[in-house]
């Protein structure tokens, strides 16, 4: 007998929209309601869900199917809670947060923007190093490290300037943003934008314009997604890292 509940999302409303597809392991999906909102769940006989492409896509497909019909707070893949009682307890504890989040994301979707720098960056002006140092091996070692550090710092600053310029343009067409500048060696920015559904074509056009304005950079625009980056986390009674933020 199933003793765990796999959580897909929180929706507005106390009932499951008709025709919702089945869940993981072909289990029936149900709505666990609490004061006008519901957790959408399906039963699991075990508390861990293998991270497979099929499971990830099924989770996402179900959430997006509901997103087409209700305001949805998507829950991270792999979130498993004990039973419907613990679910209702969680809904009651976080009720106000869920209401705020539902208000925040109603009518909106998430679009992901990633920008990469070219593999070969133009040479930057070298910062002057300390002059007239003796040329012992230890000194040469540290001078080389200093040069690498200065170069990495200059690159990072350049990436941050690019990211801030691109972001300033895109934020005119978004309600909110979660972003990091220079997130990796070649990464200029990695951002999620919260955009009104009807504004998605305009936002897409603006990203395209930015990619044309910066031909040396590579842009990736994905979505629309449910607003994963703009909602709080559903706590879990399961300490398994797969079901935690």
């Amino acid at each position, binding site marked *: 007998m199933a003793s765990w509940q796999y959580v897909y999302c929180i929706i507005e409303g106390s009932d499951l929209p008709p025709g919702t597809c089945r869940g993981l392991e072909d289990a029936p999906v149900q709505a666990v309601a609490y004061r006008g909102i519901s957790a959408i769940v399906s039963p699991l006989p075990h508390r861990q869900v293998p991270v497979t492409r099929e499971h990830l896509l099924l989770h996402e497909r179900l959430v997006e199917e509901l997103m087409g019909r209700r305001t949805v707070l998507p829950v991270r893949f792999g979130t498993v809670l004990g039973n419907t009682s613990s679910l209702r307890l969680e809904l009651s504890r976080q009720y106000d947060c869920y209401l705020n989040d539902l208000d925040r994301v109603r009518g909106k979707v998430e679009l992901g923007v990633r920008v990469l720098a070219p593999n070969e960056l133009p040479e930057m002006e070298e910062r002057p190093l300390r002059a007239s140092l003796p040329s012992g091996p230890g000194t040469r*070692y540290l001078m080389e490290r200093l040069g690498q550090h200065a170069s990495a710092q200059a690159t990072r600053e350049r990436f941050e300037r690019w990211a801030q310029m691109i972001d300033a343009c895109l934020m005119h067409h978004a309600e909110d943003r979660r972003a990091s500048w220079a997130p990796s060696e070649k990464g200029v920015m990695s951002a999620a934008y919260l955009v009104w559904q009807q504004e998605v074509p305009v936002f897409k056009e603006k990203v395209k314009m930015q990619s044309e304005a910066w031909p040396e950079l590579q842009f990736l625009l994905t979505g629309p997604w449910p607003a994963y980056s703009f909602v709080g986390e559903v706590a879990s009674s399961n300490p398994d890292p797969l079901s935690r933020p």
Partner: protein
Amino acid sequence: MTSSVEIPSEEFDKIQLGRESMERFASELQRAGGCLPTRIDADPTRVEQGLAKLVLTLIELIRRLLEKQAIRRIEVGSLSDDEIERMGLTFMRLEQKLEELKGVFGLEDEDLNLNLGPLGDLM
């Protein structure tokens, strides 16, 4: 160019722009440690290597922090020439020793890192 990145079917295609660069983005994401945290390998035959990896990662982290500190002090001019030479020699020898130990335990540079889950990689 044939892509080795598997793009979902049209029903679930979310790429609005940048399809031609998917390989590069996928490889950058993987390199930047954007995946779910891996489980601890409790294989008893690999415990020794696992411990060595942990210890050497921490030593490498401390070495990098101390080097950065030394570089900052060189930049502001608070180290004498002798101090620069002595510290440089110390860091050089420490780096050489770490390379030897990595060789003993069959570890590569990319092995010396720790995934901190939502915080990303340690280094």
